[in-house]
């Protein structure tokens, strides 16, 4: 009997699920019998040895360096060497291959334009910059420098013309202009001097040392098909590069040659590519850009994209005056110097092309009759048969209805809650603790949604503290990304990128997240990402919930790479907040790797309980628990899981309403919906408000006001209004700070709807 008891305890111990009294009993058995003790230690060792053996790669048995060793070294930064970590491949510059190719293929042509025949690279370069180990990078740097010189010369020339005009003004103006002209001429001469070189480059000699024929003075440009135009940054869904009659799956880092095309198939697909000057172009789903050309080193031969169908968005950095970028569609031509725009080609009916200009100025020409119109920021125009060609302002969003009496009650409750939170939170014991579930970010997230201005002392204290703090702990990092995305996702894009790096680097190998550990790869991220704040068009505020800031349009996208995967731990609470954080990063223009999303989705799909298999546990449907082995599916976890799946579908451009897992989760919530407790977890009243906030997120994200017969907001808000304490706080469990935050977030319906988020970026999708 005792042996049987020991073996059961042993099995439970190795599984990690002994209750406290069972642990005590096991201790008694071990203390009382040396043979039992030996057997126990042998079993523990065998257990770990099996883990070691079972996880070895097939060819790894007894290998020199195990995965374990690699995992340790991947996080170790030697004190002096500071080499790149060993296990995870550092993110290679996507322009490295481009530059290598461009260095060979494009340098001759560029030199022909920018330097006089017989010139060599500027001497200043040779003196000040040590020879690079990477010739391609060195060539790219020179190329940038030459382009800057050309641009500067253009600026000088424009300014000169302006000054010459001023010389027709008063005497004082003439004198000032003359002095300025002299200064400009000096600068121009210096630039031209720098761009000259004392001797021509050494010609390569053939192996037989025969003298080479004299090279032509004006070398012919390389074949158009061999010139690298751009590089693919991100591809999602079915995305293809069309090259020499073949259609090949697009992959990040892939080079696009002049003459190649790009195609996306399916509503959720996407392809983003970038030119060497930083111009980014994104193809939405079901789009064909049949050909990309140029730029070529001659005036009037800038970048050119032929858009045959679908939608193309572009953030075009300033182009040289004689190298405007051209977008050609079957119906129109858009000529830009530097702007952000969206072009949509619709082939239905007689066909039409719509141009939206977010920023800058675009010359839009209708090809049928050559009629042209200038479209400036905040305007759009349509080129189609039977439609007058002129620039119209973006349609304004309808104003929200006046709040009803219930809304006034809700607003009052929120205000009282916020006053309590601001006054009490800083004094709470939680505020000073640097812990994984630190409530500071949650409070700040609540203040953001409650309409507290950024210059409020408590708001600015919490924001400053967050921005100065280390990027750590999943809950906090996810909330930080959400806060910054909400406050100003362009201004804070760099910090949001750090949050994204943390989140993808803290995914567990089976797809979950745990509290997380600081990622050493955050410091490897580029120093700058955003191009500057660009506010939403006027009138946008009217459509936003009270207190929310208008979000600037994200024009530049930046990819993040998963550099490590953790092996152990994980819970569904951290995992659902990680999803919220990833959504915020995505909305801020961070391109989340598909593998991360796929793995996360796989986890949620694998761990949904089916009560057909667990009749004893009684679930009435399919839901999720905190951990897979708990067999206690709850409202908070089910709402969080389903909401996470919706987010992942949204990021991937998929229709979440077709996901059976999500539908099953909604069904479970509908069957078990109550607002006075966390459904399925009555014994934990501290999770009631946490659970309702998860329901709010799911309801808003999915886009449903009802869970079965339940109007979740009406029932939830009534409960919260009734439960508010006289001091303005809520305390349904042990932690009034958390409960107050969750109550305010619920009442405010703080979650940004996914359809509306799209509308922030593209009015066409409204």
């Amino acid at each position, binding site marked *: 009997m005792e042996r049987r008891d020991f073996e059961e305890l042993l099995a439970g111990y190795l*599984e990690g699920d002994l209750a406290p009294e069972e642990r005590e009993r096991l201790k008694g058995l*071990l203390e009382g019998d040396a043979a039992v003790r030996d057997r126990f230690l042998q079993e523990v060792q065998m257990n770990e040895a*099996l883990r070691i053996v*079972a996880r070895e790669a097939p060819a790894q048995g*007894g290998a020199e360096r195990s995965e374990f060793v690699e995992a340790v070294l991947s996080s170790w930064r*030697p004190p002096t060497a*500071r080499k790149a970590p060993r296990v995870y491949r550092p993110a290679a510059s996507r322009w490295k291959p481009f530059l290598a190719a461009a260095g060979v293929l494009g340098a001759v042509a560029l030199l022909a334009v920018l330097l006089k025949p017989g010139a060599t690279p500027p001497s200043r370069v040779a003196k000040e910059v040590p020879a690079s180990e990477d010739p391609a990078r060195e060539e790219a740097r020179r190329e940038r420098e030459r382009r800057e010189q050309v641009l500067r010369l253009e600026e000088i020339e424009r300014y000169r013309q302006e000054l010459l005009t001023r010389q027709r003004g008063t005497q004082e103006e003439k004198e000032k202009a003359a002095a300025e002209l002299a200064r400009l001429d000096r600068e121009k001469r210096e630039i031209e001097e720098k761009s000259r070189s004392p001797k021509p480059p050494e010609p390569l000699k053939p192996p037989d040392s025969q003298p080479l024929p004299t090279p032509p003075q004006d070398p012919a440009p390389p074949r158009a098909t061999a010139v690298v135009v751009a590089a693919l940054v991100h591809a999602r869904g079915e995305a293809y590069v069309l090259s020499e009659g073949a259609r090949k799956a697009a992959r990040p880092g892939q080079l696009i040659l002049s003459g190649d095309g790009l195609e996306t198939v399916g509503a959720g697909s996407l392809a983003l590519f970038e030119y060497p000057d930083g111009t980014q172009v994104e193809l939405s789903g079901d789009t064909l850009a049949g050909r990309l050309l140029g730029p070529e080193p001659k005036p009037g031969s800038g970048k050119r994209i032929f858009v045959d169908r679908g939608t193309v968005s572009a953030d075009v950095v300033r182009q040289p005056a004689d190298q405007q970028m051209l977008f050609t569609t079957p119906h129109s031509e858009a000529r830009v110097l530097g702007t952000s725009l969206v072009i949509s080609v619709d082939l239905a009916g007689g066909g039409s092309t719509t141009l939206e200009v977010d920023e800058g100025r675009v010359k839009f020409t209708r090809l049928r009759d050559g009629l042209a119109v200038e479209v400036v920021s905040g305007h759009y125009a349509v080129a189609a048969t039977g439609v007058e060609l002129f620039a119209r302002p973006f349609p304004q969003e309808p104003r929200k209805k006046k709040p009803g009496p219930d809304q006034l009650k809700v607003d009052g409750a929120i205000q009282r809650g916020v006053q309590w939170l601001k006054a009490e939170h800083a004094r709470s014991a939680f505020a000073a603790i640097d812990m994984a579930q630190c409530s500071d970010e949650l409070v700040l997230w609540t203040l953001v949604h409650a309409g507290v201005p950024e210059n409020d002392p408590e708001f600015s204290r919490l924001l400053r503290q967050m921005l100065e703090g280390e990027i750590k702990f999943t809950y906090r990092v996810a909330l930080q990304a959400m806060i910054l995305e909400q406050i100003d996702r362009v201004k804070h894009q760099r910090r949001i990128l750090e949050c994204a790096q943390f989140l993808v680097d803290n995914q567990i190998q089976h797809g979950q997240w745990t509290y997380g550990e600081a990622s050493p790869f955050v410091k490897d991220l580029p120093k700058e990402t955003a191009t500057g704040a660009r506010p939403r068009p006027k009138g946008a505020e009217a459509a936003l919930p009270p207190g929310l800031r208008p979000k600037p349009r994200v024009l530049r996208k930046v990819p993040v790479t998963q550099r490590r995967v953790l092996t152990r731990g994980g819970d569904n609470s951290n995992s659902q907040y990680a999803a919220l954080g990833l959504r915020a990063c995505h909305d801020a223009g961070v391109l989340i790797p598909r593998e991360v999303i796929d793995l996360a989705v796989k986890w949620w799909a694998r761990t949904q309980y089916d009560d057909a298999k667990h009749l004893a546990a009684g679930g009435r449907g399919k839901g999720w628990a905190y951990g897979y*082995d708990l067999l206690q599916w709850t409202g908070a976890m089910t709402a969080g899981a389903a909401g996470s799946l919706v987010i992942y579908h949204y990021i991937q451009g998929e229709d979440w309403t077709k996901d059976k897992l999500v539908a099953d989760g909604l069904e479970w919530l509908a069957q078990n919906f109550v607002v006075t407790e966390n459904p399925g977890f009555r014994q934990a009243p501290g999770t009631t408000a946490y659970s309702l906030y998860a329901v709010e997120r799911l309801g808003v994200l999915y886009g449903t006001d009802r869970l079965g017969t339940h109007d979740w907001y009406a029932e939830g808000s009534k409960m919260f209004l009734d439960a508010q304490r006289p001091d303005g706080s809520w305390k349904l469990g042990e932690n009034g700070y958390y409960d107050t935050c969750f109550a305010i977030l619920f009442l405010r319906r703080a979650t940004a709807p996914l359809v509306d988020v799209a509308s922030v970026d593209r009015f066409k999708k409204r």
Partner: protein
Amino acid sequence: MNDLIRRVRAGDAASAATLVNRHELRIRLYASKVAPRPDMAEDIAQKAFLMALKSIETFDPTRDFALWMQGIVRNVARQEWERLAIRSRVERDGLAGYLEELAARAEPENPIDERWLKALRGCVDKLPDRSREIVSLHYSMGMSCRDVADKVGTSVNAVKMAMVRIRGALRGCVQGKLAEV
């Protein structure tokens, strides 16, 4: 050993790999005895090695590196207990203290080494199909006994007891193989 430590201090990653590789097995087995849960042993051992590498300057090369590491493992395991206490209110208890004591006692007479592991690999290969499937699901895929039970269509207790039997059989097989040699 001194030379190896000196190279690690100088930031030589290859030497660090050699150092970790040399002590991995012993330290992981030690961690399995002091971890709050057996499945946390690998994480704890990794964290301990990382801490050791970061503070290698403080190690006295005249001392036993493995013993120094064991001290770090104990500290990391205690930190994990503290995390558990915060996260799930599971406190470090008498059994944990007792197992730490046990682990600190003399090494077993027949310690597990590479030879032993090699024998174990051979024995796992010879397991009946169903047993090998259970071992694979639990140890290789990291599935809990409950998941394994779902997967193979039996009860959790049956899986747990099957595991006990399998481990016993493997122990006997390994001893037999080592005795043959």
